[in-house]
């Protein structure tokens, strides 16, 4: 987990934005030492003189064997940096050219305005202004040369070990021995992993595991460049080095080597550590050193190489980066349940079974008798509203269903329309869907009523609102022949969609009197309509073919044969059976899983 620098709360390592405060987390793949210097320039701004002064202090303290408590951590670094410009005397300031003084002033005033070049220049100038400039440069050059010599030697050793088949001391490569030196606890686990060669590994996971190992090796080799040139370069060099590929040994990730396991109590300091520590501190990596003290220092008092000081954060970040690169272009894991290879068969069997049942019912089972039982209350209310209509009353039939639902909707609506037509009620057809223009012709055919024109109301919701509010104003948007909605005794909505039903209830309902809207809907909308009916916003409704048949019988009509009721019922029975089957299969799977666990337990 990483901490948000703004609110201090934990976030996932991959997060680019804090999930708590919403601010950006830009410190992904940064090194802890660098985090402390978040507000500072990219390269550590440390003058050579400061570096050497610290070096000398360290040497002195070693000589005394009682090293005084040197202030470590970022505060010390800040202090030393702040001191540097103040060390310049007024005389030297006078000697400096005017443009330089201006740049310095600006840099002092606004830190961000001091460009990288000017900062480097300032620091260089400051160092040159010291009394022993020559000696400083010489010491610095020696130090750099020493570090480079170390690096060269290590590289040579690594190359030699690679050439020798990457094996030495019982087949263990040099780099692994060094890692083991660092982490003796992780070693045991690691060996245990390596001593299981019976199970051949898949090629892909092996390659994936190699990546972090290479990154680790590269980091080990580049640790000195961290010391030399700061954390940013370390990130750049975190890519696997080409020579690391020859290692050919089972890889070790940070986790495998036990990098995160707490160390043994009271770890002793290795002799080289004091030499490196002040340098790292000066470079802003002091916090890393303390982290190392806690986590990565070996329990034994064996010698530590500077280039083996693997920083945990670096390792984790590199690991994430490598994983991301490795995963590039690969498919995602399945959504929730793993996908099975042969999953299609059961779908085919189920589908075929359902179709066979439906066909068999349609062909062999006779039509259902007219239903004589009572519908639910809303359907009864609609029946009453329809029966209350008198000869000459106007009913606006709003047709808003899709072609797919036409079989069900025609079965529900046709008997009602036929009954109304027979009683001399004036029916006017309206649609807000382009589909409705040709579906209404089919409906009129199914209802066996004379064909008439269907008006098209453009604008959907806004059209409905306009029709409800402005029908008297002869709005250009309203179709010809459409009267004010208040003039209709009933507005009969033929609907298969919640959105369209809500359009009329919400846009037109408030402007119409109570009991003006009646709905003939497809079965899936029954649950939605109930609250509206309960609130008095609907005169009544009938949902689905079954209720439609009962309503038709109540109105003295016979239902259309568009959708055979027996086949519909058979389909529902199949659904019930499949649902039960699903419950049984799940219960059995759970039971099996429990039985398998019990003997193991």
């Amino acid at each position, binding site marked *: 987990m990483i901490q948000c620098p703004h609110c201090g709360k934990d976030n996932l390592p991959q997060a680019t934005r804090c999930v708590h405060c919403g601010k950006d987390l830009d410190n992904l793949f940064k090194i802890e030492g660098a985090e402390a210097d978040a507000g500072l320039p990219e390269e550590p701004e440390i003058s050579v003189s400061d570096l050497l002064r610290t070096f000398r202090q360290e040497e002195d303290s070693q000589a005394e064997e009682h090293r005084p408590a040197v202030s470590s951590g970022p505060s010390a670094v800040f202090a030393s940096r702040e001191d540097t410009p103040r060390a310049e005397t007024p005389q030297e300031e006078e000697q400096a050219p005017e443009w330089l003084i201006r740049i310095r002033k600006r840099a002092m005033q606004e830190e961000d305005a001091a460009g990288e070049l000017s900062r480097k220049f300032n620091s260089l100038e400051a160092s040159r202004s010291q009394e022993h400039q020559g000696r400083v440069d010489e010491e610095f050059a020696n130090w750099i040369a020493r570090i480079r010599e170390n690096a060269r030697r290590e590289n040579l050793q690594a190359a030699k070990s690679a050439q020798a088949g990457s094996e030495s001391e019982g087949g263990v490569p040099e780099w692994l021995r060094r890692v083991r030196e660092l982490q003796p606890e992780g070693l045991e686990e690691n060996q245990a992993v390596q001593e299981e060669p019976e199970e051949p590994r898949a090629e892909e996971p092996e390659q994936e595991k190699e990546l972090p190992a290479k990154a680790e090796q590269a980091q080990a080799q580049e640790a000195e460049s961290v010391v030399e040139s700061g954390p940013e370069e370390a990130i750049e060099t975190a890519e696997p080095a080409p020579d690391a590929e020859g290692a050919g040994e089972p890889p070790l990730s940070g986790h495998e080597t036990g990098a995160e396991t707490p160390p043994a109590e009271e770890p002793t300091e290795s002799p080289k550590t004091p030499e490196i520590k002040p340098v790292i501190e000066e470079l802003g990596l002091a916090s890393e050193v303390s982290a190392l003290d806690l986590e990565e220092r070996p329990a034994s008092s064996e010698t530590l190489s500077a280039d083996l000081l693997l920083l945990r954060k670096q390792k984790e970040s590199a690991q994430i980066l490598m994983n991301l690169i490795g995963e590039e272009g690969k498919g995602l894991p399945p959504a*929730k*349940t793993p996908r099975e290879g042969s999953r299609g068969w*059961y*779908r085919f069997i*189920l*589908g075929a079974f*359902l*179709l066979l049942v439906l066909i068999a019912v349609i062909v062999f089972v006779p039509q259902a008798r007219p*239903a*004589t*039982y*009572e519908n*639910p*209350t809303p359907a009864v209310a609609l029946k009453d509203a329809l029966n209350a209509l008198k000869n000459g009353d106007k009913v606006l039939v709003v047709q808003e269903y*899709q*072609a*797919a*639902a*036409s*079989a069900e909707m025609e079965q529900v609506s046709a008997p009602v329309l036929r009954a109304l037509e027979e009683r001399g009620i004036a029916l006017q057809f309206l649609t807000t869907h382009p*589909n409705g*223009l*040709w579906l209404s*012709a089919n409906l009129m055919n199914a209802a066996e009523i004379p064909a008439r024109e269907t008006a098209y109301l*453009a*604008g959907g919701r*806004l*059209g409905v*609102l*306009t029709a409800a*509010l*402005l029908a008297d*104003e002869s*709005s*250009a*948007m309203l179709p010809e022949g459409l009267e004010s909605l208040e003039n209709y005794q009933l507005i009969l909505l033929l609907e298969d969609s919640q959105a369209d039903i809500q359009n009329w209830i919400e846009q037109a309902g408030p402007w119409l009197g109570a009991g003006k809207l009646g709905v003939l809907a497809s*079965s899936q909308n*029954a*649950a*939605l309509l*109930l*609250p509206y009916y*309960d609130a008095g916003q609907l005169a009544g409704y009938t949902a*689905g073919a*079954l209720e439609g048949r009962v309503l038709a019988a109540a109105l003295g009509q016979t239902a259309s044969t568009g959708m055979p009721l027996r086949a519909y*019922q058979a*389909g*529902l*029975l199949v*659904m*019930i059976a*499949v*649902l039960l*089957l*699903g*419950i049984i*299969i*799940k219960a059995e*799977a*759970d039971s099996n899983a429990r039985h398998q666990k019990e003997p193991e337990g």
Partner: protein
Amino acid sequence: MKKTLPILVAVLTAVFILAALILRPQLNGWLDVVLNWAVVTASAALLVAVATLLLTHLRAILRGQRGFIYSIILISAFLVSFIGALVLGLENSAYLRWVAAVQLPLETSLLGLAALVMTGAALQIFRSRGWSLLTISFGISALVFLVISLGLLQALNIPLLSTVIAYLQRLPLIGARGLLIGIGIGALLTGLRVLFGLERSWGE
């Protein structure tokens, strides 16, 4: 200005509609104009979207992209429908029958396919979602309402059973009302955000 002008227009329109709904008789004329604009704008947006779709498929054909044959079918179907309506008119019954003969089986087969898929999903639901209060209640209510939808129990005409069924059929009222209240409040707050220029999903 480029960003504020659309927001300003949205806010002013929303405020006007709200005011016109309250002060209806006085502002009816203006309300008609604004609603007409909105409908024309929505229709123009549809035209733009259709044009974009056609251009995309034309480009696919010209470049010979994979599956360009479907693009040819799409554009051909569009042209035949469009020119047919222009030449024959929307009142022409032959034209309407022709459109119906294409669209009805297509949509019906999609719905039929959805029914088949639903059957498969019913088998999988407990496997994929596991046992939880939600899935168990979902399963029970699905079974109960499927049985009620059969209509066989109602046909028995047993008074006590009819009462129980009538009670069960009112049960969805509770959940549906809760959901509708939530959705209604959500829509109201979204409307208010539009009203005050806070909702800018389409902005930038």
